[in-house]
């Protein structure tokens, strides 16, 4: 597979979006959204990470295999957090 050359303009745009999102996440943190604060913060962080991966790290232009590796990494982190939390989050059910 020949390598894909991303025009520098795209890098600049992505960098701009990332900086804006940093300010957005900062601003949102000042507002009390109850339990939704963490959801919003992590969603923004996930968007930023996705942008970095897709464009700076060229995942968007990479072979399917590379994309699979990335998805596998996220999937396994998900398994760890989800199944561990299945213990912690269901412990209070006993007492109620």
């Amino acid at each position: 597979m020949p390598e894909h050359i991303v025009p520098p303009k795209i890098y600049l745009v992505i960098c701009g979006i990332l900086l804006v999102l940093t300010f957005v996440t900062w601003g949102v943190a000042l507002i009390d959204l109850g339990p939704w604060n963490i959801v919003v913060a992590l969603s923004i962080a996930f968007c930023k990470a996705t942008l970095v991966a897709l464009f700076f790290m060229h995942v968007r232009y990479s072979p399917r295999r590379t994309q699979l590796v990335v998805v596998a990494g996220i999937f396994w982190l998900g398994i760890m957090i989800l199944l561990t939390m299945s213990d912690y989050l269901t412990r209070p059910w006993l007492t109620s």
Partner: protein
Amino acid sequence: MSTGTGASVPTLGHENYLNVSYGVKSWLLTTDHKRIALLYLVSITLFFFLGGAFAVLIRLNLLTPQGDLVSAETYNKFFTMHGVVMIFFFLIPSIPAVLGNFLIPLMIGAKDLAFPRLNLSSWYIFNLGGLFTLYSIIRGGVDTGWTFYTPYSSLYSNTHVVATVVGIFITGFSTILTGLNFIVTIHTMRAPGMTWFRLPLFVWTHYATSLIMILGTPVVAITLALVAVERVFHLGIFNPALGGDPVLFQHLFWFYSHPAVYIMVLPAMGVTTELITTFARKKLFGYHLVAAASFGIAVIGFFVWAHHMFVAGVSPYAAMIFSILSYLVAIPSAVKVFNWMATLYKGSVSWATPMLYGLGFIGLFVMGGLTGLFLAALGLDVHVHDTYFVVAHFHYIMVGGAVMGYLGGLHYWWPKISGRLYPEALARFSAIVLFVGFNLTFFPQFILGYLGMPRRYHAYPPEFQVLNVLSTAGASILGIGYLLPMFYLIWSMRYGPVAGPNPWPATGLEWQTPSPPPPHNFDVTPVVSWEPYDFANRPDLKYPAPAPELGHFQPAAQD
């Protein structure tokens, strides 16, 4: 196969990886995957006998109900060091780092692994980790159990926890780098014509194993690092008195350490598949299914870890989920066993030494696996948790499974590794000794555990003595079974009859090159044009045709 005699020692003429250069430096600075495999072989054999020495001490102490040999504290150190050395320094690297390292490039038709220098550094990292662990043994050992449960390990134990934990942390990186090397090699270095579904199952199982290595090992590394930091700086991450949570340690530890069992047994399954097909002279039954089952085991293996924690205070709802998920692992494992059986069916089975190990693997793995299902059952686990039933179960998987596979593989590929044959009769005898000794050692432990003898105690009620004596007697037979191969394999390196490139003969690409292989594995890059294990259609092997099939199953094409 006849035993070679000293009178007429045949020599190996061609240039190969063993005689291409000489001297300590040519070995310690080698980047040849075959030499690195032998370096690993030396290292893990030393650790195997070190771990075995602790096992001997444990079994000697348990000869009498009062545990007359050592004090309770010393006994705690014995079983801890036995577990740490055997698991992290023998079982995890055994098949992948020795046989996998040697064979994966040969099997896929590559000159070497993708990153040869990384491969060498894995071996150095492994030994560095081993030195830390040896240091802690020499300084008096560690007594937490190989599981390092907090807060005992991080707060109360007065033994050398930090040195051991740092040793395992370092060794973890050697595992990660080996797994990384295998994955990249299998993806990018296959010879022309070597498609994914022409790969030997040995390669498939190593791919699945490598997945576990790279996804699980970093988690246990960071967890043990946190234990060390917590112990040194008196932090409270896993200490309930300081606001932390000890069960969290167990979650993180078993997230790796349960899949780690599959790091040990999956490669052994790969070896067994090679052995069964070669010595049944038959195409593997259900190739795609067996390959998929390897992945099934690797993936589902990550969903089940909390079955080690049913009595540790986890939520019963989570426990139910983990119990059900644990049953799922049985499906791909059973798929493999049934496919081996179907492969043997109507094959022309011969009883060469590697085949004895292969068949031994299947039997012992089935016993270990089925008793694992007992333990996955929530209610029964509460009854037998932390008893010798568990000890017997995992020894059937790890020793009966992984070590049988390792020794079977070592015998099977020994002619390729050394270029020479071992004394067949002696080898068969020692395989049988091993099988008998193993069962005599560990079967009584099932009964002991079911009767309620807890593990990790240095003394026990007198009524358990008969079974414990049986177990110790079995262990001494088992010990002979391990020592014999070491002697005759070393002997054969010099005096064994020359094997030739393909002594069995087998279908894999590794048998197409001289034994021992030349430094770059193949004189000409091979081109693969055949299906795996296709014994019937390989006239190039000059293989005796399989016995004609009997009865009405005879396919029409062969009329």
